[in-house]
């Protein structure tokens, strides 16, 4: 065999391999593998990302090879658009998973988000632009239907817009605050936040801080939390006590702060019952209870691929509709023979 024959042979082997990778049968195998992968991932408790990644990657290869080798895509534009859109969906989902961010934040009324998340899950290539973001929460209202069933949430927030001007907006259900692509959604998590000012004995600037008690009414009977006074090792246990019915189950109501309440503060064996304006003197300084505020929990989400993914998915759906329309319009369903105009 000559060198030329050998080159032709290896080239034709490559073409055969490409045709095999782009075949309808391989596509069916991939779809079946994805079906099994989704079931495995759904039923398994362990980490099973591979069960989805392998068939999706294999499907991407199949789609690309099919478009390169199958002549039907050159004759049928809708089919080509459909397969391109499917490939785009897979690639965008992969890019999205590499760069996404999902997290949670809590902001006290009158306070501001300073770029720090309470929980965070991000793709390996996610940047850290969120650290530079900020907005202030000016308080929130939440309606409740009888039976303590949560209704509409309205949260007033203030932020600097792209032009650098201060802007206020009401966000809530279906209405996130979007800053530099990061989407902040009000969540069902919200509660009470006793607010303190810490006056260090050694002097220095007094520090204002709020303790976010567990979410209310989700943890109605666990309105207590331990925390550490800033700059010290003093652990403080704080519990909120009130008699008032915050959310009346028998009527439509709104989330509100308890009017009359006591704040129980315990440090070691010592215990105090405080009301707004009262203080606790400690060797390291004075802890002043200034009052109660609310805190709102936010779900934070970032994925730059969303609009592209939507466009690709819509392109896939409409091109498939176009393909079927052409195919079915060419021949009535009750006609025996295909007229040969469609695949």
């Amino acid at each position: 065999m000559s060198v030329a024959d050998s080159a032709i042979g290896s080239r034709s082997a490559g073409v055969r391999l490409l045709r095999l990778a782009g075949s309808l049968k391989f596509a069916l195998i991939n779809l079946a593998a994805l079906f099994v992968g989704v079931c495995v991932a759904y039923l398994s408790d362990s980490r099973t990302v591979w069960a989805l990644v392998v068939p999706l990657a294999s499907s991407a290869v199949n789609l690309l090879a099919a478009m390169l080798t199958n002549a039907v895509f050159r004759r049928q534009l809708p089919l080509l658009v459909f397969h391109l859109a499917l490939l785009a969906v897979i690639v965008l989902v992969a890019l999205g998973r590499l760069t996404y961010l999902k997290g949670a934040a809590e902001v006290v009324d009158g306070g501001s988000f300073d770029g720090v998340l309470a929980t965070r899950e991000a793709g390996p290539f996610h940047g850290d632009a969120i650290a530079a973001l900020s907005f202030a929460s000016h308080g929130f209202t939440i309606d409740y239907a009888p039976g303590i069933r949560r209704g509409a949430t309205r949260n007033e927030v203030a932020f600097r817009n792209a032009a650098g001007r201060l802007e206020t907006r009401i966000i809530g259900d279906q209405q996130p605050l979007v800053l530099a692509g990061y989407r902040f959604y009000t969540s069902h998590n919200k509660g009470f936040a006793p607010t303190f000012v810490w006056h260090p004995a050694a002097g220095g600037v007094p520090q204002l801080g709020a303790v976010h008690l567990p979410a209310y009414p989700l943890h109605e009977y666990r309105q207590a939390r331990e925390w550490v006074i800033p700059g010290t090792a003093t652990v403080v246990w704080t519990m909120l006590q009130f008699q008032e019915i915050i959310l009346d189950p028998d009527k439509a109501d709104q989330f509100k702060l308890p009017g009359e309440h006591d704040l129980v503060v315990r440090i070691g064996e010592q215990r105090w019952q405080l009301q707004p304006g009262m203080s606790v003197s400690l060797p390291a300084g004075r802890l002043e209870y200034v009052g109660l505020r609310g805190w709102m929990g936010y779900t934070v989400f970032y994925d730059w691929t969303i609009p592209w993914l939507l466009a690709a998915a819509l392109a896939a759906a409409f091109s498939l509709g176009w393909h079927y329309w052409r195919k079915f319009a060419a021949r009535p369903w009750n006609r025996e023979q295909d007229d040969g105009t469609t695949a």
Partner: protein
Amino acid sequence: MEQLLELKLLWAALVAYVLCGSLAIVGVVLRKRPERSVLALLLLGLALHTASIAVRWDRLGHGPFITMFEILSSNIWSLMLAFTIAYWRIAAIRASAAVVMPILFIMMGWLMMTSPGEGHFPPTYHTVWLFIHIGFGKVFLGAALVAVGLAGAILLRRTARGAAWFQRLPADARLDELAYRCMALGFIFETLMLIAGAIWAQDAWGRYWAWDPLETWAFITWLALGISLHARVTFRLSPRTGALMVLAVFAVAFLTFFGVPFVSTSPHKGAV
């Protein structure tokens, strides 16, 4: 008072549906063609059912999207509407009503055993995407139901009695072709349903996809449908195999629409 009117209208609609289905089955068994009466009863049932849903909607201030009663009622309505359109427009397949109506009888029996009490309409449901998502889902299931009627007739015709009952239907290959077209239509609307659902989920829960049970099962349904359509293109399947695949896909879809929402604890409940 209004609830009583709503229930009276619903029961009247169910009576019309049952009469219609019974007439269709008797017509197939006795080889009669009471098609005008069947169509009239279908339309009467739909009119009464529409009135019942409208009265309930007006009373509660929200559509039938929350409780099992509402979901079953609205799906019986949409499936009936889909089949009525097929029955009216494609005269050749009218005998398939004898297959379709018993499936709807099961849903009606289930509905009658379900409490008509009201549920809470969550704030995340106050969006136009609810209607778009559900609308697409209903078109998908309606198209799948018409395909199931054809698939059932193909399979029943393999018995001597079934062959006699359904002799006036077109040949199996033609029924198979029409079932394929219905499933293809369903596939497009199932895809659109997933897209609309993802848009809604993004704004409602801050993520477009989270593999919650209902999302996962909706995707499994989409894959099952995709596999069945792709298998038809890849292999020359017999009408019997095609019919079995239609039934399998419908079974998965039925489980997704009416089973998973009520065993899931995720916030994404049975808004279908």
